[in-house]
Each structure stands twice: as C-alpha cells, then as structure tokens.
C-alpha cells in the first residue's frame, strides 16, 4: 500500500485553511475545492488536523524498519575540538544528552577526535559523559572531513548508538552529512529542541524551516542512529562535577590505510572575529537603519563601553558595512546573550530566529510598529543617532 491522501469534494467547503497550513505548498483551491498536488505532498498530516469539516483523510504506508533497532543503544555526543579546545556547544550537548540518556535508561558517551587531546577526556566525564572514546593521532590534529567522517562512521557501525548529537558548527555540519550518507541514516540539521517519544524511543527533533517562519518536528523512525546537529546556545551547559567517574576508551587508527584525500595547509585567524559573538554576554547589533557603515563606530562604542560584542543584521552585512562574522540570524550565528541591543534592525524573521532566546532584548528604532520593537523587552522609539549617544552618556555617569 502506498501513502494515500484524499480530500472529499462533498465535505470540502473551500475555506482554504489547509492551503495556508500546508508547509509544502501542496494544496490549492480549484473551483472552490481543495486539491492536493501529489508531487509536493509529504503526508505530514498538517491539513488533516486543521480541516474543520474533516474532509481530508490520510493513510500512511507502514514501512518496515531499515535496521533492527533493538541492536542500537546509547546516546553519543561528538566532542568537537578546534585547535585543541573543546567547543562550548559540546557541554551544552552533554547536558541535553544526559537528559535523553536518562529518559531512555542508557549511557552517555562522548567521541573525541584530535591530536594531543587525551587530557580532555576527563573534562568530558566531569560534564556528564559515562564513556569517552578517544582518537589521538597527529594525523587528526586539524579537522578534515575524510578521516573524521571515516572514524565516526566506523565507530557507529561497531558500537551502534541510537542517537548521535553534534554541534551545528561549520565542522559538525560538514562531516555529519558525510557520516549520515555513509551509513544511510537520517540527519536533522540545526535542531533547537530534542525530546524522546517514550512509546517508540524515537527522538523528536525540532528545527526551524522556511527561514524560521515555522518549526518542524522531524523523526528518523526506521533508521539508526538518529543523527542531529544542534544549534549553539539553545541548551544550558552541563555543570562540572569534579572527579566524576567514567570510562576512557583509547582507540587507534591505522595511519597508513585511513582515507585522507585533502591536505591541511594552515589556519589564518580572522582578527576582526576576536570576540566570538556566540559567546558574548552582551551584543550590540546594527542593521539597515544605521544608514551607512560609519554607524558601526557608534555601535562599537556602546559595545566596548558595555564590554560586549558587535553584531549585525544580514542587511548590514550585505551592504558591506561589516564583516560576515558579525552576522546574527538564520544564515549567520545564533546568539543568546543576557542583553541584545538591536539598533536600526526591523526584525525580519530570519534575524529573530538567531537572537530571540536572548534574556533581554532592547530595540532602538524609528518605526514603532516593526517586529523588533513589538517583541523587545524594552523598545526605544526614536532616532538611534540621538538615543545611543544619550545612553552612552548615562552609562558613563554611573
């Protein structure tokens, strides 16, 4: 039996709710009745739920599992390191991973790949890992997709975890894709919420889609492991428990046979990215409303005064007013500082999705009705070139 969806023309009243609800644009109204475009339908069932007259029926094909899921057990976190330092997103993943592992009643493992990195294994145990698999070899000093993806894919096939979490970093997003392709399993990008469905043990992975306009909950129901990359700063870091007990498993690689087709020739630091905006407690961001690149001088003055970092909207970056490394939003960084000050940023959904988890949002804008002003904790209506200098003066008085 194939998937089937039928809209009863008798029952359909042509209200169009299903048309606007369908995330895939698969439903349209023809002659006052809803019609499904089977090329686009993904049988998600959203339309069935919203139809007020129960005109839509859907039957989903029962498909057999691709693997014997009972063989897969345990939650894994890929312990990403860059230049020998563990990325902070790893500690966030260990926190969430521990919660998922507890809920499934399984263990939490971390996978550490690098060179001269073994000393970091205990840190991962202190942050909640029960087991740490360590691959420590000079060949692995710098991240390259080939060896890293081979190691992780091989270990997954050997040990069969049910869940593998990775940071949605440039590294994570690049080689997680290769691993999932190798072992034929599902990979959900950029997750912002993770939960276990107790009945099926499936991981419910929620991520933004369509530029953050909607959230989609994704399952990998028939394949294992369930792989997900997770955004920074959506989960709190796992607390440190000094001297926590865990198992460290040292693994070796065969340097002669490991696939390694690219050559790492060097790292060149971006001096303007000295302050990593993902880690900042205070961010002052500028957008199109600055009017010109000079506006960022004022933004930087306020940021420096507050000990914060400078952020930017995509509009400002696209206008070449500031480097891309400062961009906050869907195609830039996700941030969640204690204070986010949005200056001349109207608040397109793509920007909002990258900063809306900030504790306090302060908006400065002439347009009182723009989305940023409507959602900020404190909205300051007026000319930012008058308000920001006034704020700077006030703070200097403290």
């Amino acid at each position, binding site marked *: 039996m194939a*998937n089937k969806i039928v809209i009863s023309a008798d029952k359909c009243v042509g209200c169009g709710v299903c048309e606007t609800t369908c995330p895939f644009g698969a439903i349209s109204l023809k002659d006052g009745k809803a019609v499904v475009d089977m090329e686009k339908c993904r049988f998600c069932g959203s339309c069935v739920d919203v139809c007020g007259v129960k005109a839509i029926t859907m039957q989903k094909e029962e498909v057999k599992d691709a693997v014997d899921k009972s063989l897969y057990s345990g939650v894994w976190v890929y312990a990403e390191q*860059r230049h020998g330092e563990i990325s902070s997103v790893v500690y966030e993943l260990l926190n969430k991973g521990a919660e998922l592992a507890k809920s499934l009643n399984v263990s939490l493992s971390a996978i550490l790949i690098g060179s001269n990195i073994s000393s970091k294994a205990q840190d991962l145990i202190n942050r909640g890992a029960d087991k740490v698999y360590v691959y420590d070899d000079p060949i692995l000093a710098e991240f390259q997709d080939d060896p890293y993806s081979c190691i992780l894919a091989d270990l997954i096939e050997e040990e069969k975890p049910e869940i593998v979490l990775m940071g949605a970093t440039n590294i994570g997003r690049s080689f997680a894709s*290769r691993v999932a392709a190798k072992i034929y399993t599902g990979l959900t990008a950029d997750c912002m919420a993770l939960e276990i469905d107790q009945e099926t043990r499936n991981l419910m992975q929620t991520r933004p889609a369509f530029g953050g*306009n909607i959230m989609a*909950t994704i399952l990998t129901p028939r*394949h294992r492991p369930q792989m997900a990359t997770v955004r920074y700063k959506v989960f709190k870091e796992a607390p440190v428990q000094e001297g926590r007990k865990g198992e460290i498993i040292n693994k070796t690689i065969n340097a002669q046979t490991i696939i390694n087709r690219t050559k790492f020739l060097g790292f060149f630091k971006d001096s303007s990215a000295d302050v990593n905006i993902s880690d900042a407690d205070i961010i002052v961001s500028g957008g199109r409303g600055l009017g010109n690149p000079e506006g960022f001088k004022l933004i930087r003055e306020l940021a420096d005064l507050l000990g914060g970092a400078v952020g930017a909207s995509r509009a400002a970056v696209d206008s070449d007013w500031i480097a891309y490394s400062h961009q906050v939003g869907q195609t830039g960084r996700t941030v969640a500082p204690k204070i986010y000050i949005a200056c001349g940023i109207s608040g397109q959904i793509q920007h909002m999705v990258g900063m809306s988890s900030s504790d306090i949002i302060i908006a400065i804008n002439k347009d009182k009705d723009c989305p940023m002003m409507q959602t900020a904790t*404190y909205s300051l209506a007026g000319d930012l070139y008058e308000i920001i200098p006034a*704020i700077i003066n006030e703070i200097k008085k403290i």
Partner: protein
Amino acid sequence: MHILVCIKQVPGTTNVQIDPEKGTLKREGVEAIINPFDEYAIEEAVRLKEKVGGKVTVITMGPPQAESALRQAISVGCDEAILVGDRAFAGADTWATSYAISTAIKTIGDFGVIFCGKQATDGDTAQVGPSVAEMLNIPHVAYVRKIEEVGENSIKVQRMMEDGYDLIEAPVPCLLTVVKEINTPRIPSLKGKMAAKKAVIKQLNAQAINADIKQTGLAGSPTQVKKIFTPPQRKGGQMFEGEAQDIAVQLVQKLKENRLI
C-alpha cells in the same frame, strides 16, 4: 575541465510571511528563484571554466518548473543543463535528494570540480553537498570562500571557519560548497539570455539514471516530518517614547534596577 554545479529552486524567502490572523504561512505571490547561495556556485564554476577551459553543466533535481532556474544558470555562462526529475523523487529528504543527484552525476561520467551553494534558503541544512560527495566517493570542502590556486590535479581553497579560515588542498575531482564571500555573481548578458532561450534541457528520470526506487523520494528518506507549527512569539515589553535624553535615562534606570549593568 568538465565542471558541474548543483542548484536548487527555492521560494523567494523574503516574501514568505506569516498570516497575522491565521498564524500560517502566506504563499501567494511567492516566486521561485535560484537559491541565492547557488548563484555564487554558478559564478565560481563559470569563472573556473574561463580560467582553465572546458564546460560547465548545471544540474537540479525538481519538478518541471525548475527548468527556469536552469535556463537562468545558462544565461550567466553555464553551457549545458540537466533536470533530474521523476515522481519517484517527490518528498525526498536530504539523503534521498543526495542519492538521486549523485546517481545522476554518475551517468554523466567524467567531471572535475563540482560546485554547490553552502546551503539552500528554504531548508538551511547544508547537507546535500557533502552527502553527494560521499556518495560519489570524492572528497569535499565546505564553506569555501576563495579558490587560491588551481593545478592540474588539485585545487587549493580557503575554508571559512568561525574563527578565520583554513587553507585546504583537495585533489580533483572534488566537491566544493561555497559561501557568498567568494564572488559577486554577474548579470546575464544579451548573448547569455539568447543562449538560455535556445538551450535544450536534458531530462533525466529515475530509469535514465538507473536509480533504486526504494532509495528515492519519500520512501527512501530516513527522516520524516512529524508535525509543523508556528514558533511561539516573544511577547512585547515596554515602549519608551519622547526625547532621546529621557529615553536613555529611563532605560539605564531599568538596567540598573535589574542589576544588568
């Protein structure tokens, strides 16, 4: 060199808005465009051809309407275009999409560098490029912001990272996903527009690429969409209006009260 570039047609996302009353996605008037990141991939492919010679073939997987994206790619310098399309591909996730595209590329035969945009603006996964490389058993470099050198059998590129860039040398054939820093895409020339009009788009269906139907489309997709919802909106707070000086005083007072500064 036979250079390939993989593109995707996406909704022009700036037009995608939430209906304030129903809280659902407004689709009226949303035009289909080439994924903005893919425009940089097309431009870089054409620049590489102009440097080393050869031809550029542009590939997309999608419905028949995606042909317009391919013609647009020809108007800016691609030589040939392939539309990989079949009902069996409908509902594909990134795995099944990568399978169909890589299987199609295998039927094309010899190729040098494959370009992709770093991600598409509708799904934002950045997964298809690296997955296609894996399925073709070639290396890839993601987030490429500059090609430094092209040799006979290798290419040296800058890979953008959060803290700067890595310099990576990859053998050819390989796949590169590019970021927007890499170039400024050209505007189609009159000659290009004529070529786009006349171009014959090669159509490849599941049978033509010898695809295993069990691995395509919804059936071949490991991930499934369980539900879709509108994200909870942050509630608005306090509005300050009037003289800049007064506003600043009130704000700083608030921040002090809350021990934020």
